[in-house]
């Protein structure tokens, strides 16, 4: 018997372990160590006015949403319509964090074209070329959506594209609830 013929079996076992994990842990409800913590601040250039900065601090005092997206992200496209509806319905100020997009060196033609095509529901779009803000916020993949309360505490994180049911059953009630809280 030759040991090398066991390699494929062992590799497969490792993969199965991974899958089992993936199945048990609904990717949409990963607990984030950042929940319950003050929202990490960032100061990033605006997509449309690169000379101006967007910061997390200036959002303090109201319930707001941070949505992470990129023009290369296919599921963001699927999410965009749902997200736009959410923003319109709840009138919730939302910052779009454009994560590591193409052509960010010359300020993201792709990102601009994407928003021109699908519509821009964001209050402002922050350009995170290096992905540093993403790192601070503990981002796992694109898209991700965070809800921050009036005190500036991260209260919820949604991994993956927001879909209709998640919007109606999770995000809308949560935002309504958070708005009732005191500052």
């Amino acid at each position, binding site marked *: *018997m*030759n040991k090398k*013929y*066991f390699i*494929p*079996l062992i590799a*497969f*076992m490792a*993969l*199965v372990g*991974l*899958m*089992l*994990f*993936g*199945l048990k*842990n*609904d*990717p949409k409800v*990963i607990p984030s160590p950042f929940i319950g913590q003050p929202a990490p601040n960032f100061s990033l250039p605006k997509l449309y006015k690169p000379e101006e900065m967007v910061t997390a601090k200036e959002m303090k005092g109201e319930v707001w949403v941070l949505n992470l997206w*990129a023009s*290369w*992200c*296919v*599921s963001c*496209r*699927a999410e965009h*319509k749902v997200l736009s509806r959410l923003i319109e319905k709840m009138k919730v100020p939302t910052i779009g964090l454009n*994560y*590591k997009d*193409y052509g960010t060196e010359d300020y993201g033609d792709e990102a601009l*074209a994407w928003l*021109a*095509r699908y*519509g821009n529901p964001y209050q402002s779009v922050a350009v995170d070329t290096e*992905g540093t803000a*993403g*790192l601070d916020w*503990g*981002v*796992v*993949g*694109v898209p991700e959506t965070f809800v921050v309360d009036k005190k500036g505490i991260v209260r919820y994180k949604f991994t*993956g*594209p927001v879909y209709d049911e998640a919007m109606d059953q999770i995000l809308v009630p949560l935002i309504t609830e958070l708005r009732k809280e005191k500052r």
Partner: protein
Amino acid sequence: MIPEIGHFALILALSVALVQGVFPLVGSLIGKNHWVSIAKPASFAQMFLLTISFVCLLYAFLSNDFSVKYVANNSNSQMPTLFRVSALWGAHEGSLLLWALVLGGWGAAVGFFSKGIPPVMLARVLSVMGLIGVGFMLFMLLTSNPFERLLQIPLEGRQLNPLLQDFGLAVHPPMLYMGYVGLSVAFSFAIAAMIDGKLDAAWARWARPWTNIAWVFLTFGIALGSWWAYYELGWGGWWFWDPVENASLMPWIVGTALIHSLAVTEKRASFKAWTILLCILGFSLSLLGTFLVRSGILTSVHSFASDPERGLFILIFLLAVIGSSLVLFAFRAHKFRSVGAFSLVSRESGLLVNNVILIVMTATVLLGTLYPLIIDAFSSGKISVGPPYFNSVIIPLGVLLYITMGFGFFLRWKKDEPSRILKKTWLPLTVSLVAAFVLPLVTVSDFNIMTSLGLFLGSWVTLAALMWVLSLGRSPFKLPMAAWGSVIAHIGMAMTVIGITLVSIYDTEKDVRLEVGQSYELAGYNFAFKKIESVKVDNYIANRATMDVSLNGELVNNMHPEKRDYGRDQMPMTEAGIDAGFTRDLFVALGEPLGNNAWSFRLYHKPFVRWIWLGAVLMGFGGLLAAFDKRYRRMKKIVVEPVQSANKIKDTSKNTPGVTA
């Protein structure tokens, strides 16, 4: 009544599959010949019962029988007939039934076209296929029965996702499934060989045409999917590295590797254990693809439905199939001693490079696809994976692959002289290098090194293939089909790479706001917005724009991009206007109304985009030619007159070294 018949036929098919999976296999091990002989009739019976089941569900769709839950959920009476048919495999339950039917079809085909295969071997192959069928039918009957009835019968059914109401998508899943499931034949052959403990040239000759045909279906299926995404999604792209796209690409890459490694196994009795492993890997990735699409553990635009319970079942099934075959491999692979030694410069080495590159590509795609999952498990890094990752890894590997490909044609089995190869290849090398640098300089203003690289790779492979076939010095009509197949398929690869290069570098796109009567110029073409009207077709209402496209004042085409509304809370769909051409596509997508008779448009000029799919068509055609090569049909003679025809085969291979690989 009819759905119950379908349900019952499915249960019967499961029973037959169980018999087919157990008795012939056990019989072949304990030497009961009459058990062995069950395999073939059982495979026909299974196919027959599955066909009945499928036709019953089809009938339910065509007769708008909304008492069947699956029909009510996926079809309504307003839909055109074609889409009522394709709605059958538009969602989970029906697509599983199609899977099972296709598997049954492959099984029956193996049973039917297997005259030269020894009965014991055939019995084992069909048994393994029967067991796979058992898994799928159990899955269907336990978790996703398409024949389930509703107590309250709705008057009208729900709408099929409008994205799926399209001809391209109606034929895309069956094609892809034919390919996915077709790999189960090679897999079953591999399992049978491992049980047997013997793997010879005859085995490789049985497995090769089946693998080729499965690969051809995969090729067409993937190309159709890419074409569909291009014109239907209105994104103007042709590949997105989406998890579901990757799931179909991985078995294709492994299948490509397998086709080449099978050649070595047949001709040189080498790469044996490796070939077996590739057979297992190819089918495993097909199953993994099903798992990824259906379980919803990865999010993608394609995952229309997901259900963790079903995911668990597929995972257990995956574990049983792949796990048991890898256990078998671990204990049996040492029996396959590869005898043919080869030197560093030889056709074997070339094909080894091919296989290594293809497997690294597969691993790359697999890693990128599962990355979110891995990150989830270890929650360590925070790097995002998207097209930037795939492109940066796949492109260099592809360059190496194409360079090797050209040399591969001229390499001799066993041992070759570098000087001889150089003598054969300096001409195509020089010509393609010159062409790659001169052509862009003459035709476009801005020089881009990637253009030259793409053109070089494409023309190098094309020239090498053509020079090789000419250098054989035989009449084109006397060449074996496999040789033609190989040349055509590789020229297809060349076409695809040229298409990818040119469209990636030179495509132009523009978002414009146009009022009726205004026009815009893009890449020399004038796009004039003539009018917009509202039209009503059977299953949707659309805003249809008319755009006159002209080049240097001459009208090229009238294009009609549409924005379709399928009603019932469905999101509006973009139907792009496309003017297709051999050297360029013009693509117009209608955006939103901006008031004052003005609309937003997205205009594209996509040079050579068709070449990507034309290349795939050539690849598929080449694979088909190779699968029908005469020597795979000589089997019967080998059995009847073993000595004589074995000599004949030896003779031909002596005369034409490497013609048929």
